[in-house]
């Protein structure tokens, strides 16, 4: 079962503490080493993002940045796991690391199964 997870937070939180970066690096390495992690990466900030929307039969384009305070995805990971619970556990581990290394940080991880279009 393939999953994609997004780590989401508000954009005004600043840079992560080095301890978290290090801990996350180790966690990712472990996930690559046990064969469950397929790919991971970061996403550009909303300042550089664009949304196009269809409403009232009109397509409109809006460029970032957007109103602050909204939780947005800052990074993603694609994993191959044997159950939904395993994907959730991987995500929970990420939040445990944030709790330990980034005092006051709040955010979420969105966990979605990927279905192939083909």
């Amino acid at each position: 079962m393939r999953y994609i997870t997004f780590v989401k937070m508000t954009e005004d939180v600043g840079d992560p503490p080095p301890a978290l970066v290090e801990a996350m690096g180790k966690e990712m390495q472990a996930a690559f080493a046990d064969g469950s992690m397929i790919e991971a990466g970061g996403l550009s900030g909303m300042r550089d993002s664009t949304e196009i929307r269809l409403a009232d039969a009109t397509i409109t384009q809006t460029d970032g940045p957007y109103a602050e305070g909204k939780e947005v995805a800052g990074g993603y990971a694609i994993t191959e796991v044997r159950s939904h619970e395993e994907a959730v556990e991987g995500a929970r581990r990420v939040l445990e690391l944030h709790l330990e290394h980034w005092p006051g940080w709040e955010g979420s991880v969105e966990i979605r199964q990927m279905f192939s279009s083909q």
Partner: protein
Amino acid sequence: MTAPPTHDAITAVWRRESVRLVAALARMTRDVDLAEDLAQDALVAALEQWPDQGVPANPGAWLMSVAKRRAIDQFRRNETLRRRTAELAHELDEAEVPDFEAAVDHIEDDVLRLAFLCCHPALPPESRAALTLRLVGGLTTQEIARAYLVKDATMGQRISRAKRQLADSGAKLEMPTGAERQRRLADVMAVVYLIFNEGYAATGGDDWTRPDLCLEAMRLARMLAHLVPEEPEVHGLQALLEIQGSRLRARYDEAGDPVLLEAQDRRRWDQLLIERGLAALGRAEELAQRGAPVGSYVLQAAIAACHARARRAEDTDWVEIAGLYDVLARTFPGPVVEVNRAVAHGRAFGPEAGLTIIDAVDSVPGWHLVPAVRGDLLERAGRQEEAARAFRDAAALTRNEAERRILLRRAGL
């Protein structure tokens, strides 16, 4: 207020840790069977306690400390094991690491030792595969039984017998060195490859593939590549499995009938796995350039990569593939390689070139691939009647129902 973790959630947490638990406990107790029991005990304790207490921040450390406590209790209670206790008590104390993660380097060696033991030459290959899936893959006996289409009890017996055979043969958890290490590593790789192939070209039953086995084998290959990163063949194995695994979805049509490589809808190939496979092959080739010897997995992966790089079947670089098969045939001769070499030469230089090779292959009793490939080459050469006869011969030999259907169709039946 969050809901307490479910049975499945706790099992998932445990499963993520199980290989490292079993591997570390096996080192401490020098008893794989006991190590597995202790890891199971830790799961039972988690199932009892976590619904109330929640999942601990570091579940690996929690499970490990419970298992170690159980180990010490057991040794104290069990008279027959007491003789070993003095020695083991020292080991267990020494292993009392407060931070499980801090012991990661240690753990990787433990996991590799466990893999060597599961693939020990004292065991027949199918027992090695079952034991590896159980102890290194962390699968339950039921899951392995389902994957191999046998009864739970049958698989349970196979695993127990394997453990008994290991104990009887005096096989030890060890880290072999030099040529012995290469030999044992080859055994481990062969088991991973065997598991993949069992899923990829299901030899029995109605299904053409059993993807779960392929996914497990791919996971094991990735693990192995991290455990032995200096070895090109291990990256070659990973590359081979990732690239072959990328075609899983394209290998059968909606009716469940197999689709051969050249007829596959390449849009259904998993590009993410192809990228990973090509990257792994790149690592293998880089190591090879620095002088590390390559073997059959790297060569096979290089061939698989030629297919993966071709956007359309007609773009396939068959001359390159034929050349790689020539190298493979010189270094690792055998009928399987010859059959594939015949296919490649047939595509690269015309069907007659392929037929010359296939006609020189000694017929292997009960093996359908020689007549199947001969049929294909004859068909391409426009020799329809001979082709139909070859396809009929092949259909009579295959044990796979789906494959039989396709062969009979090509025979015009």
